[in-house]
């Protein structure tokens, strides 16, 4: 029992449960799941679906942060992805067909791959600081999205495409299946291959890694490409949800939520050791917060404040220094063994 609360995901998990508990107290039936037309409905399903885009972005962000980097351009990439996909559908001869929807997905993801590669080249090959390198696309990206949509909020109708966000397969939302599926695949690949270890080595000691023959440039480049691609996928889900390409507001501030999720999940911004499961809990906390705000009837005026308080509480509980201050010296030693 004593060991459980020293696990680094203990406090984030507790925060998530506390939020859900608070909601249940206010509305006892909130966590119920009902079956309607063979689809699952209810707040938990909503949380899964609503967290999908953020989870995709945060997974990419986790890997980028592990290499001592950061990607500020994910929000812009989300906007571009949606803009490209919907513009592609709008300008096609047969907007409603499945073929058009598939084409839109391919074109959008292809472009996001290139955007990720652009970041990757700047960081890995030219050695530009990640925060500066990705700031370029962060600011320019929305301009590009505006160009693509001609400054209009393009609205289209494509049933197959909108399935990305609102469709169901096997009773579960398609968006959630995509996001949590991608999460599982990435988590598996990272730990089953040597990718995770090599990324961590690069993040912990870049020079030692280079001298050990690690292809750090290729690795760093790859994570930025992956981050771009996953952000593109998130953008498609956003677009499928609204079916309107809004260059200004799609994915706005998602980079901050993603970084927050990574930090809540226990991955240090200094790079090195990363924890994808932690990131997922972070994403769930952030999504549940939005639900809690409505359920608990928090006034829209103080919503941001409410969120901030929860986030501060979680990060404070995770702070090694605060824990050390609270705990005894013996416990502090244990943290260094277990927590690092």
């Amino acid at each position, binding site marked *: 029992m004593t060991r459980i609360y020293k696990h680094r995901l203990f406090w984030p998990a507790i925060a998530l449960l506390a939020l859900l508990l608070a909601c249940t107290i206010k509305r006892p039936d909130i966590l119920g799941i009902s079956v309607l037309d063979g689809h699952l409905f209810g707040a938990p399903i909503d949380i899964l679906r609503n967290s999908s885009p953020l989870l995709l972005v945060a997974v990419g962000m986790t890997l980028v942060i592990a290499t001592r980097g950061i990607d500020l351009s994910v929000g812009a990439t989300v906007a571009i992805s949606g803009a490209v996909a919907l513009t592609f559908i709008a300008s096609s001869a047969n907007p409603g067909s499945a073929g058009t929807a598939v084409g839109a997905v391919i074109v959008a993801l292809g472009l996001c791959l290139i955007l990720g590669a652009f970041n990757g080249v700047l960081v890995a090959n030219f050695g530009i600081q990640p925060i500066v390198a990705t700031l370029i696309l962060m600011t320019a990206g929305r301009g590009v999205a505006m160009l693509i949509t001609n400054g209009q909020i393009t609205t289209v109708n494509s049933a197959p495409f909108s399935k990305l966000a609102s469709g169901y397969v096997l009773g579960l939302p398609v968006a959630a299946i995509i996001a949590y599926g991608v999460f599982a695949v990435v988590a598996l690949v990272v730990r*089953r*291959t*040597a*990718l995770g*270890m*090599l990324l*961590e*080595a690069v993040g*912990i*000691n870049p*020079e*030692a*890694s*280079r*001298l*050990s*023959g*690690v*292809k750090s440039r290729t*690795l760093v480049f790859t994570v930025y490409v992956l981050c771009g691609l996953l952000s593109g996928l998130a953008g498609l889900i956003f677009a499928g949800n609204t079916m309107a390409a809004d260059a200004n507001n799609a994915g706005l501030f998602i980079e901050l939520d993603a970084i927050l999720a990574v930090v809540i999940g226990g991955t240090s911004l200094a790079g*090195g*050791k990363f924890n994808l499961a932690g990131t997922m809990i972070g994403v769930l906390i952030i999504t549940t917060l939005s639900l809690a705000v409505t359920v608990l009837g928090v006034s829209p005026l103080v919503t941001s404040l409410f969120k901030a308080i929860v986030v501060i509480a979680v990060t404070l509980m995770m702070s090694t220094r605060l824990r050390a201050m609270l705990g005894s010296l013996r416990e502090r030693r244990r943290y*260094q*063994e277990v927590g*690092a």
Partner: protein
Amino acid sequence: MIDSTPMSRTEEITVQHSPTTKPIVQMAGISVEFPGVKALDNVGFRLFPGEVHALMGENGAGKSTLIKALTGVNPIASGTITVNGNDTRFTGPADARERGISTVYQEVNLCTNLTVAENIMLGSEPRRFGGLDWRTMRRQAQTYLERMGLKIDPASSLGSHSLAVQQLVAISRAMVVDAKVLILDEPTSSLDTDEVAQLFEVMRKLRDDGVAILFVSHFLDQIYAIADRITVLRNGQLVEEREKDQLPQRELVSLMIAGTSDAQVGGANERTAATERAADAEPLLQAVGLGRKGAVQPFDLDLYPGEVIGLAGLLGSGRTELARLFYGADKADDGVIKLGGKPVKLRTPRQALGRKIAYTSEDRKGEGVVGELTVAENIILGLQAARGWIRPLPKTKATQIVDAYIKALGVRPANPNALLKNLSGGNQQKVLLARWLATAPKLLLLDEPTRGIDIGAKTEIMNLVSELAEQGMSVVFISAELEEVLRLSDRIVVMRDHAKVAEIPSTPDVDVPRLIEIIATGEENK
């Protein structure tokens, strides 16, 4: 080892300065302890007004610790510091600076994006009406620059000047507080000959004005060009303090390396007889005119399988730089490396690893240890990097390799899942050796593998090197400890001032004094 006297040796050393001058800084019985290490052990040091005093010693001798003890960066465990006859403890460099002791560090830590005047006056800016008085600032800066003999515009940006000028600006800045003591920590390491001359001119001028200058440099010639007095430290202990004129170069090197003025340490080598090279042996690797500007002058060197080459030379002599060229850690800009007679490209560590070359850096912490990874992960890192991320080393094989090396090298604790940062220096070094041995190298470049580790681990590592060579590995062994070099090597290459000055077979008549002679004079013949 050295004749370690338990008492501070300051008292024993006859005062050669005129008795009327009192030292401006006097440190006595100084001990500084870091967890598990005694960085300074009962060291005495004194500095007189109007002298340039060189502080000499190899890596880990305690030079920077002594400077940091004086300026209050490192707390001292025991001992006294008197400045101008008053007992003093500074709280930090800023406090020391305010009270007349200024330090200029190796890397110029100024703001290159500010102007020269701003850099000089930073912290003591003239103010007017609550704002900065720019005109006075420039005028005051100008006078300090003139004192240095520097004719540059104080309003120009610092970044637009050469490193030498920046170094001089840093010294000007140190003089703003009317420093009585100036500490220069390796100011010349990035300067060329003319720039050094310019710096020395300024130093002489300041000295003649009565400033006491503490000077740290690895270049013997520079020491003899500028210093009045020399203090030698070794392994945290005071070895000697003497006037320059009474300390010949040869003796100085001997003091730095062996701790005695006339090194008679045994250490005749043990390997030569057993490992006579066959006359028709083919070299594994040949360097032809290999060099890199500012690091190593072009040199030739053949490496044979089953042979240990010892690299001897002082810190900064180019011994590390030479090894890094073979590994592609730095790119050579001159010459070629031949493998089996054919020129090969070794421009990155990866290429070198592909050719079965391995290198352990002297900077274990900065360039070797991946602290937050486990012992097992650190051991397989090199192997895994060579395989690429997509083909992970099979778990059973990894466990097998890791367990085998932990056992063979006696890594303690023998726990593959311990984080490497929690191991002692000696055991970290063993893990790093395991990382490289696991790649089955044909050539192993060991840069100071025995530094900072306890005597037991040292012996184990040296025995291992010996065994590896017998099994046919080619080894390049770098160490500041000449006895170690002598004991292990079949051939010894001596480096001095970034150049290879000698290559001698390690025959029984080669001993530490002979090596010291070559290191000090750069000449092979007695």
